[in-house]
Every structure is written in structure tokens, then in C-alpha cells.
């Protein structure tokens, strides 16, 4: 694995092992430093100790769901807001409105391709003031057309 020069850290929170691995691989190949958590609880623990530049969050998680996770993130002390890309099946307009109110920057409906995730993540990071640009996008290795 290569981590040198990888300044953009992305946390992927998804209980689905297939989606989690696929997104992590695509992020890694695109030049991001990717971390994965299968539960909101595990994600909150790691967020308490590390800083991330973006989070890709599944709405429907077992136990603490994505919305409750967003609420819990607010209570982490001394943290700058982290842009969140919310993903999930059948995201309704009300879900999106509520999520945006909780700090979500973009939403992506499942099922999705790896290319779609990279495109939306790159766009979200570019729009986030002060955040480092997407490493992969800078190096031109994001597989948008694969």
C-alpha cells in the first residue's frame, strides 16, 4: 500500500461488506487514504481520535443509524465540520432535507457505481472551502469513465 503524499482521509461507514470494500478500493486507487467502519459506533470511536476530510455514510446502519450518527457527530468536541456524503436506498426528499440540516453536503442513491462515488466525493471536496483538494483528482487518476 502507498500512503506517502496521501493527505485526503476519507472514512467510509457502511455495514454492507461488498459496498465497503468496493468503495475503499476505488478510493485507494484514486489516491485517497481510505478507512472503513461497519458500524456507527466504530466510526464514532475513530472520529474521536482522528481527523478526516470527508465521510461517506450509509443511512441505514444497524444499531445507531446514519441520522443518529450525524447527531452524535455534533457532540464530538473540538471538531471542525466534516463534509458528509450520505448514501442509501430509496432516499426520500424528507430524508435528504433532514440530512442536509444535520450537515450532509450531498446524497447518492444506492445502488451506485464506484465511479459515481468518486465523482460525487471529488465534487463535494472541491466545494468544501478550506478542505484539501481530492488527491486523486489532482493526479488525474480518478476513474470517472471506468
Amino acid at each position, binding site marked *: 500500500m502507498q500512503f506517502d503524499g496521501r493527505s485526503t482521509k476519507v472514512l467510509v461507514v457502511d455495514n454492507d461488506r461488498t459496498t465497503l470494500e468496493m468503495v475503499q478500493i476505488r478510493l485507494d486507487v484514486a489516491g485517497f487514504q481510505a478507512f472503513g467502519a461497519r458500524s456507527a459506533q466504530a466510526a464514532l470511536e475513530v472520529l474521536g481520535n482522528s481527523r478526516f476530510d470527508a465521510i461517506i455514510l450509509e443511512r441505514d446502519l444497524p444499531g445507531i443509524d446514519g441520522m443518529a450518527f450525524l447527531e452524535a457527530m455534533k457532540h464530538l468536541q473540538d471538531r471542525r465540520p466534516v463534509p458528509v456524503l450520505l448514501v442509501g436506498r430509496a432516499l426520500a426528499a424528507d430524508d435528504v432535507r433532514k440530512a442536509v440540516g444535520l450537515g450532509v453536503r450531498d446524497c447518492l442513491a444506492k445502488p451506485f457505481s464506484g465511479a459515481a462515488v468518486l465523482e460525487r466525493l471529488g465534487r463535494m471536496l472541491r466545494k468544501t472551502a478550506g478542505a484539501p483538494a481530492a488527491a486523486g483528482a489532482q493526479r488525474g487518476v480518478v476513474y470517472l469513465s*471506468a
Partner: protein
Amino acid sequence: MGAGIASGQALSPSVAATLDVLAAEIELAGARCIFLDRVIGEVMDRLTDDDRERMLQGLHGVDLLAQHLTSLSAFTRTMSLAAPADLTLPVDAAIAEITLGALAERMTAGLGGSEDDEADDADSGDVDMF
């Protein structure tokens, strides 16, 4: 020979859900190919000219395979969105044909079956760094 995934009751998910799970697995296979493509590219830099020529053919094949898989995934994903939600099919016999245990477990879980608790216990609370 199947992977031997035990199932408490017969699984009859909707065709849409089945195609959805299949699309996700094909997308993962495509992602693994893209990763392999990168690794081969890195190795090529250290090869002699003759070996590099041979490896280039392999790299081309992996690139084609990645495109093949991501295209099939897109097709299957689109079909899953078009499939009627009320149409169901039994999948146990098809799952039993899958010889790769981890794949059979993931698909079983994705199609509404129980997930392997031991595998879950091993993973629970972990944060994986790719």
C-alpha cells in the same frame, strides 16, 4: 460444489434485490481489477524491456476485464431498478453453486439471509484501513 452456506429458511428475495446484490458484487470484482491494474502498472516500471512487453499484454487484459465488469455491473444495476418489486425467485439453489465461501456469505446476507456471526465478531468494532 457449493460453499455450504446453511440457511434456516428458503430465501425468495425480489428479482430487483437479487439483481442489486449481483450488481454490487460485479462492481466489487471490477474494483479489484482496477486495483490489480494499478499494481501491475507499478511493477512494470521495474521490469526489463522484454518482460515489460509481455506484461503490457497482461495489463491490457486486466484493463479490458475491468471495463467488462463495470459495464456488466451498470447493466445489472439498471435492470435492478427496472425490475418489478413484487416479482420474487428462490435463490438457494443458485447460492449453493457459489464455491467461494465469502462471496456466498455476502450474497446470502444481502438477499435477506443471516450473516455469518463469527465473521461479524471478528470484524465488530474494527476500523479497516485500506
